[in-house]
């Protein structure tokens, strides 16, 4: 029986440590100590953009196609195909994009950070940094978090454009129950600038948690090549659940009491 409870118990063990680690890294950014290595942060932002942007956008695009498809068929089945725009607007901006962004970030960026930092830890490069008088936590973790904060909002905003065009493609061009104008009318009616801000906040909170979890598991990796692989796998498990829970909390906070729809008073 004990083996079945291994995963939840492991999280309970590491949750507090991840929290403490995250607060320390964020503290390094707020105290301004990370700006000693501002060039390194910019380099990390550049790596994010050149290495991950395309895959993030492709993933988001596929989810947009799927949103449009499911929405179009659902609205056909309730006899209101002209309202597909409602489903797409909600699915794309409020839910689909943050989740797609969280999934692909935890897969690409989160595990990437664990693999990189874990390899450094195993080959004692992190200890070498300390000997050289460079604070490894500032140089490795805080710069990555700052780089993510610099680059990711822009990737997210471009992703919004892509997911919108993907939904448009699958609703209007593939299924074709609604005209282009009718779709866009409903689509734009059911969203407003605050929704965009809320969605962006949701995505960025997820990104912050993913980068911090990745840094934690990479920074504390141990046990040779096997240890790096295990740490990478563990960080992915933690990130997936964190993404879902943050998504639910974001929905509860931003849209739970007020659906922000242009219906009624």
């Amino acid at each position, binding site marked *: 029986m004990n083996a079945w409870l291994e995963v939840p118990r492991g999280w309970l063990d590491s949750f507090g440590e991840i929290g403490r680690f995250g607060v320390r890294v964020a503290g390094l950014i707020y105290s301004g100590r990370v700006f000693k290595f501002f060039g390194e942060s910019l380099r990390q932002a550049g790596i994010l953009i050149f290495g991950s942007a395309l895959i993030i956008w492709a993933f988001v695009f596929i989810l947009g196609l799927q949103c449009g498809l499911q929405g179009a068929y659902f609205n056909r089945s309730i006899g209101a195909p002209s309202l597909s725009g409602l489903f797409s607007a909600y699915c794309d901006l409020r839910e689909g994009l943050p989740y797609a962004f969280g999934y692909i970030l935890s897969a690409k960026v989160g595990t990437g950070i664990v693999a990189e930092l874990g*390899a450094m830890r195993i080959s004692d490069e992190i200890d070498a940094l300390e000997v050289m008088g460079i604070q490894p936590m500032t140089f490795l973790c805080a710069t990555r978090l700052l780089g993510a904060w610099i680059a990711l909002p822009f990737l997210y905003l471009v992703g919004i454009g892509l997911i919108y065009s993907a939904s448009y493609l699958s609703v209007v061009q593939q299924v074709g129950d609604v005209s282009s104008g009718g779709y866009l009318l409903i689509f734009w009616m059911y969203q407003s600038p605050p929704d965009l801000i809320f969605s962006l906040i949701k995505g960025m909170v997820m990104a912050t948690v993913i980068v911090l979890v990745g840094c934690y598991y990479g920074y504390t990796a141990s046990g040779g090549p096997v240890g790096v692989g295990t740490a990478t796998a563990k960080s992915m498990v933690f990130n997936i659940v964190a993404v879902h829970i943050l998504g639910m909390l974001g929905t509860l906070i931003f849209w739970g009491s007020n659906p922000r729809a242009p219906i009624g008073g």
Partner: protein
Amino acid sequence: MMILTVRTVISAVRSPYPYGEELVWQFLFVLRLSWFPLIVSTFALNFGAPGLQAAGILSLFGALDRLGGFFVVIAIRWVGPLVTAVVVAGVAGTAITADLGARKIREELDALQVLGVDPVKNLVVPRFLALMVVTALLDIFAIVTGLSAGIAAELLYHQPLGGFFATLFTNATITDLWSSVLMCTMFGAIVAVVCSYKGMSASGGAAGVGRAVNQAVVIALVAVFFFQFVVSSVIFATNPELQAVR
């Protein structure tokens, strides 16, 4: 990867079958790792996205009983298989890549080959079969958890549950269920092949295993999402009873 797929399928059906014990072990391993993340994830996703968003807008119309029909779309056709695949890829797929990658780095796979043991037949095939079965089974749990999240959203808005179940059962069809489970079986196959391939071709020491896990999970996720789009397009287009007004 295609070659590995074909080799895996061929050696799975051709006798002898030495992988029985490993199959059971892998099955339990995946189930043990995945059940908790799966239940938490599906509950959170179904409660947040379709539950609260749709209930919010439906309560403006005063039609909260329609949430049941909506959950057929979300929980059974879409989110159930999707979250199951994401969790299996993230939990079991990464574990498989890390395991096989570590064995590759320590040259255990070469040693097996020298001993005359086929690594595909003894390591990849049990994982492949176990993941296919486990993903399909976990999909049922994902659907049940998703529907209970819908019930939670309904209760949050102080609604009686009769309307929810009535629209749920009039809108759900057998096609929905079997297509969802079948889709999940294929997802399991995709995840297993991608992750085994990346694990078995890992190289370059400690950094190499980590990088293999990273690439494996990215490829598996993109492949699963794309595959789901194609499959659900085909299923919707070929089964008109899914589009009937009820």
